């Protein structure tokens, strides 16, 4: 952090303190970050709080940086980036989204999923989106192109239960590990999961193969 940045940050902190905006620093940050970084992160937390975003993921990101002895600039940048992703996730998923959904949505955005796909997912699925978003993130991280992954999860969104989506993700991961191309694995498994979801809905008591 340059001298100019330090001075600017301290000035900002003083202003915030004076206006009472930075009214409550998280005590966990006070013990793990230096004072300058604490103030900068605190300002980001206040902004997030004002915007209705969950602040716990931001605190944890700062603590992660502290645990890994990251440079203060890097910690502040990471928290700022996550706050931005949470904001985009909230705009895409809607204001009624739970903190867990927003956190999962931010991870999906980080992986490369488009905000429009998060919006479509919200429109198609009435249950919580946490598992579906996590599956989407895992698929993209695992190598499935974001548009193919989004298509697969959107196809499952309306009919599949959380456990079926989780099973789908595991099956795709295993296929990829065994050599299938990620997009092909997703395409094959989404058909099987849709078939299962449809049959399970029609015959809920039909036993399934182990």
């Amino acid at each position: 952090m340059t001298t100019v940045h330090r001075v600017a940050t301290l000035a900002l902190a003083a202003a915030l303190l004076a206006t009472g905006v930075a009214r409550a620093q998280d005590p966990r940050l006070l013990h793990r970050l230096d004072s300058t970084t604490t103030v900068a992160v605190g300002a980001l937390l206040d902004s997030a709080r004002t915007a209705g975003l969950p602040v716990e993921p931001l605190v944890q990101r700062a603590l992660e940086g502290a645990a890994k002895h990251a440079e203060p600039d890097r910690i502040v940048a990471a928290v700022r980036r996550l706050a931005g992703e949470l904001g985009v996730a909230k705009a895409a998923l809607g204001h009624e989204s739970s903190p867990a959904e927003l956190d999962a949505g931010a991870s999906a955005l980080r992986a490369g999923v488009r905000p429009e796909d998060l919006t479509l997912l919200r429109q198609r699925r009435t249950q919580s989106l946490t598992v579906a978003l996590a599956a989407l993130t895992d698929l993209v991280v695992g190598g499935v192109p974001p548009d193919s992954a989004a298509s697969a999860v959107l196809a499952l969104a309306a009919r599949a239960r959380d456990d079926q989506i989780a099973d789908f993700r595991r099956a795709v991961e295993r296929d990829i590990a065994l050599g299938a191309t990620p997009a092909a694995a997703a395409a094959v498994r989404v058909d099987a999961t849709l078939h299962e979801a449809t049959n399970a809905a029609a015959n809920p008591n039909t036993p399934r193969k182990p």
Partner: protein
Amino acid sequence: MNPGRPAWAVTAVVACSSAATPRLVAQVKAAVDLGVSNVHYDGFLASTAAAVSPSFRWAGPRTLVVANGSYLRFASGNRSLQANMAGSFFSAPLGHWTGELSALAGASQYRDFTGFSHALLTGRIHLDGARTGAWIGGTSGTTSFVDAQRPVGALLAGVWRRQFTATWLANANYTRVGDSAYTDVEGATRAVRGRFTFDGSLGARVWSRGGGHGVYGEASGSYAVGPWIALVLAGGRYPTDPTRGSVAGRYLTLSVRLTPLPGRSASPPLIVSRPAIHHSSPSSDDPPAVSAELQDDGGFVIHAAARTVEIEGDFTDWQPLLLTERDPAGWVLPLPLAAGTYRFSIRIDGGAWFVPAGVTKVPDEFGPGTVGLLTVP
């Protein structure tokens, strides 16, 4: 048989060398490799395996037939089978030019539930001199995994040169398998001196969409103990091959090669002579040494044979937390996890922090490694 390189590329190498060497009489060569391998597939823990790899080669004046297979038994008790067969027909030479048409088919199975198969047709034109040559060609075919068929297409080009006791080869391949595509650039050499034979290759996947990136290379050395027996030490790293369903990985193999039909080729084909390793990887069902499992009741368990297991993550305020040993090799988080997405790492016996198998890994914003991503529904 090269475990990592696309099968038709190997055929191309065989054909290249064969086209450059006039064959007046048919030659038959058969061998079987018996060996022990240590294989480390990307994303999995290392595993040992016993391997039996038979191979057969028949070369006529204008035809070449190569068949090989492998049977592997992993330390977990799981088994895999692989078989490939390729046949090539060469046209009569027109000056320095020769045409080649080859067909290749193969199949593999890991345990009893995962099978790949492929069928490929390759056309190639060779320009051969006494010591140098080149070829260009294309491949078309299909590969299937479970019940999904995918088209395969490839463009191939390469050059070779024979100098003293060594043969050098360089080739570039552009391959499409379904919606995946990649370009490999490779070089290889073979040198024979007395009873020693050395094969080496170095390549790079310079461009890829869904096929991975990276540099790979393999080397093998063999010592002929007698006319029918040789000791072979081979190792290296190979790339993902979507056609044959192989995961990128690295290996080290020590084997005995028995050659009941040694053949008498004056110029053996330039094939890196590593023992065939079917590298359909162990599935996540294999008991890994360190893995994480989120259980249905919300419990989080680390499976590891260790004296201590610590975890740090979003649920510990990124402070190391000692896990409780529930049973041998089962370490549990002593607190329930609420629904949410968590980043975390673990360490064993006070060592370096890492992400266990069975967990999604994402880039670490604060360092060069990765961090685990865990979602609790």
